[in-house]
């Protein structure tokens, strides 16, 4: 796989931006996998390949409720690597499984790195405790900018890791088409498990469950009509 350095740099910047978007700034939903992957795919000249892996990773992301202190995967920067692998595979049928695995691995590492970041910010907070107690506004600003800077570094590191995984996989992972297709089937099955599991959990037993059932029936009807 040969990717021009300028494209790699653009992907790194994009991954950094979407990593920041998840929590720190601006939470504009840039970090949704289908958004990340379409933009990354476009940068790589194949938005359709990006779209397919983005939608599959989105099925996993729909399982996540990013509530407060809970621990959740950060799929954004990882999706950049997944899209890179997807655009270089011979066909999506044989390449989607490995691309998804790159996205999932990166997502899990990303979740752990968020926890590290939150502890690191708390350490900075302790160092500034006296200034904060004295109502020093520049201490507040400093903490804010430093934390966002750390998150940018975290996001850039995660993107570099995901891109590295994608480049390594496309260079050294040699799969026969049968195994590649089997991996894709497994990834699709697991993606469906994630979105169905998340939908059932969110639906509970009330009105939302009835709406979910109605939606499922509508989707099946739509398939029948097509």
């Amino acid at each position, binding site marked *: 796989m040969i990717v021009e350095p300028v494209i790699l740099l653009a992907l790194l910047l994009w991954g950094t931006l979407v990593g920041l978007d998840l929590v720190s700034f601006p939470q504009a939903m840039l970090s949704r996998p289908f958004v990340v992957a379409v933009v990354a795919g476009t940068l790589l000249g194949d938005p359709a390949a990006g779209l397919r892996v983005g939608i599959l990773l989105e099925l996993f992301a729909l399982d996540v409720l990013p509530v407060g202190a*809970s621990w959740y995967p950060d799929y954004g920067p990882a999706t950049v690597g997944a899209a890179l692998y997807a655009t270089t595979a011979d066909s999506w049928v044989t390449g989607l499984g490995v691309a998804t695995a790159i996205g999932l691995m990166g997502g899990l590492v990303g979740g752990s790195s968020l926890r590290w970041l939150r502890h690191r910010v708390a350490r900075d907070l302790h160092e500034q405790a006296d200034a904060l107690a004295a109502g020093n506004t520049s201490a507040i600003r400093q903490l804010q900018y430093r934390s966002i800077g750390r998150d940018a570094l975290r996001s850039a590191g995660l993107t570099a890791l995901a891109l590295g995984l994608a480049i390594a996989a496309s260079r050294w992972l040699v799969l026969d088409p049968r195994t590649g297709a089997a991996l894709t089937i*497994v*990834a699709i099955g697991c993606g469906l498990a994630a979105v169905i599991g998340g939908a059932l959990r969110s639906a509970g037993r009330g009105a939302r469950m009835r709406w979910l059932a109605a939606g499922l029936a509508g989707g099946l009807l739509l398939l029948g009509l097509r």
Partner: protein
Amino acid sequence: MKGRLTALRRLYAVQGAWNYERMLGIGMGYAAEPLLESIESADPARHEEAVVRSAEFFNSHPYLAGLALGASVRAEHDGVPGVQIARLRTALCSPLGALGDQLFWAGVVPAMVAASITAMVLGASPWVVAVFLVTFNLLRGWVAVWALDTGIGSGTSVGAAIRQSWLPRAAARAGSVAGLLIGLAIPVTGAWFLEPFGRGPVIAALGLAVAGVVIARVGGPVYAAPRFALAAIGLTLLVGGLLT
């Protein structure tokens, strides 16, 4: 109120220094700074106390944090006792967290994502991504302006203002819309992915989906899905490698 636009802009980074001790506290203090500036010249001691209070522990949904910010800053300007302002902030944490999570994380976001991916798998162009981003951010921006203005306008009676607003009703309904659209997306997206495969692989994928749902129920919610997927992919890779 002076500094309103800067505060609004800074609210977009309200989680910038999120941590396990003060949660959104530092971000709230950062957003409050321009709104508290005018107190400094009139009463420096009061300003100092207000700055300290503004950066203390706070937690809510980030998109609704403007309600608490506006209300507490208005109370600071009105000379409400500090203890009462601290109590107001604490009292707002749970309702703003619950309403925001219900409205956005469990409602608007999954609903819009599901609608977007359904449109794309049915053949719409990838420009759907741009439509999604613009629509979501217009809504989010409007909510941010409404939240800050409602907070500033109502001060310590912000609780009543929230109760009488559109927010509780929208939060209660958003989940149903999300349920409907996710339900619609599941079979359509599944069929789109499985279209080129034969009957055997399709049955295998659906069997795996059922197994994954059961394992997620038993093994815990958040990490169950990606870990299960990675284990299944790893096992397939191992078996595939051994057979070839």
